[in-house]
């Protein structure tokens, strides 16, 4: 295997998630161009770049959500723990159970209660064991730092919570199915600063159990919470490095211009 030019520095010996030469298209538009990127287990990896740079699209290829958009096309390979998720006979549904997702806008199911929202991944699967469900709900809510705020109103509709609480509910919902990897697509962009701070705090806790890949347009956020950062520009991966290094000593001129706020 030839190492990609922009492979992580220092190299990651045993990546949990690994993208190789990923290309993504919307009809004729080439949104992601030959991106290769390895993700270290139990870390937070941030994807940054100006809007329209392909970071969100790339994120969505990692759990095969990209292909749900009409006109979308994919080329390349993504492996999860060594297994190609685009391999022959791989069911995208299976993939998404192992690689969860938290979206830009909090999207709890409006017809379900807080409790039902958290365990919906399990009840969908047909899990009926009351004790297992209760335990899972409590653990996921505690893990997403929402438990104390909602433990007395688990039957209230999920949409009755504030925006920040809704987003943590969505994180709990993703955690409940115990995926090894969770993708987050600008999870704080619709939230106020206090809610944002709580979720940033949460990221440090989360990585003890799961691997997080987060897209953000907020460089401070990436610098604060991520172990590694990848800078995307015009559909390409420009630079990928430890966050401490990328933000202090960027190797590429475009990265430097971006992090010093000269465009984007």
């Amino acid at each position, binding site marked *: 295997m030839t190492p990609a030019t922009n492979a992580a520095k220092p190299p990651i010996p045993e990546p949990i998630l690994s993208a190789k030469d990923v290309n993504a298209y919307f009809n004729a538009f080439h949104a992601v161009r030959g991106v290769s990127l390895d993700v270290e287990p139990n870390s937070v990896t941030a994807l940054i770049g100006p809007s329209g740079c392909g970071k969100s699209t790339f994120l969505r290829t990692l759990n095969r959500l990209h292909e749900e958009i009409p006109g979308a096309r994919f080329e390349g390979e993504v492996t999860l723990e060594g297994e190609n998720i685009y391999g022959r006979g791989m069911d995208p549904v299976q993939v998404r159970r192992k690689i969860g997702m938290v979206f830009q*806008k909090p999207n709890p199911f409006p017809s379900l209660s807080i409790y039902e929202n958290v365990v919906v991944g399990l009840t969908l699967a047909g899990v009926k064991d009351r004790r297992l469900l209760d335990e899972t709900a409590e653990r996921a809510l505690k893990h997403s730092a929402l438990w104390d705020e909602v433990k007395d109103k688990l039957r209230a509709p999920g949409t009755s919570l504030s925006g920040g609480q809704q987003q943590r509910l969505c994180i709990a919902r993703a955690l409940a199915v115990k995926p090894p990897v969770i993708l987050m697509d600008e999870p704080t962009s619709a939230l106020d600063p206090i809610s944002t701070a709580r979720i940033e705090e949460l990221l440090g806790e989360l990585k003890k159990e799961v691997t997080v890949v987060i897209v953000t347009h907020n460089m401070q956020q990436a610098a604060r919470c991520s172990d590694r950062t990848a800078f995307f520009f015009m559909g390409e991966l420009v630079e990928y490095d430890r966050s401490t290094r990328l933000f202090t000593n960027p190797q590429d001129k475009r990265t430097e211009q971006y992090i010093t706020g000269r465009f984007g």
Partner: protein
Amino acid sequence: MSTASPITSPSPSRRPSTRPINPGDRLFRRVLMGLSGVVVAVLALIAIYLAKLSWPAIHEFGLGFFWTTDWDPVKEHFGAGAFIFGTLVSSFFALALAVPLSIAVGLFLTELAPPRAAAVVGFMVEMLAAIPSVVYGLWGIFFLAPLLRLYVQPFLGRHFGWLFLFQGPPYGIGMLAAGLILAIMVTPTITAICREVFRAVPNTQREAALGLGATKWEMIRLAVVKSSWSGVFGAGILGLGRALGETMAVTMLIGNRNEISTSLFSPGQTMASVIANEYAEAGSNIHVAALAYVGLALFVVSFAVNHLARRIVKRLEMGGTR
């Protein structure tokens, strides 16, 4: 901002209305109002004329008209109970078939079918609404009724004859045939609304479900169907409004017998079909009045049903833009 002149106003049609200053504009507005005023007037006149025509029957039979079933033009005694029963049974039977079918078609068109297939299937379903009622009646007499009489009814009678719905001799023509043809006729109406309701579900909901590892069907159930019930209900009500007043195909297929039977195999009569059958030949004034009274009731009911459906659908439209 209500005093802004039309020329400087940034968005003329959104501007709160002021009386036009230009004489040409004033005339134009008056002409339009005069013509469209006819629409409002007609609606009011329909109610007034129906009440006037049916007055002798209202006076004679009162509200008891609706639960007595004795309809005898010779003795000049009239009660519409059997028609109301027939209308309700045929309409709700039709809805029981058409609503699930329309939900399924709506889901297929919005969630499953590739755009081109959806366009073709959608167009064909819409065309079901364009075929004239009398053509459905003709087809029903020569195709549907024989099919029911020779195959469907004997089968139902043999295997489900213990159920009160499927008893009696298979005529072909009757409540079953009328209900089936009604189901075909209201399916496009209900499907159209279901489609809009499902389409209004935000994609973020679908992605939330898919991102959890839901299968497509689970995604449909969780993200699409669960949040659409009130819209589907509105669609059903709108379908009910159509079914209640549908006349020709039902008249040709229901058998036109003034009786109440619990079996779908029996002939019956609806409010609309009795008017179609007897109005032109009604001999006496009181007979005409009784038929007009049935018409008045049908008018009031379909008015109320449509109003209800409109309110439900309107509320959804407002929710959709939120």
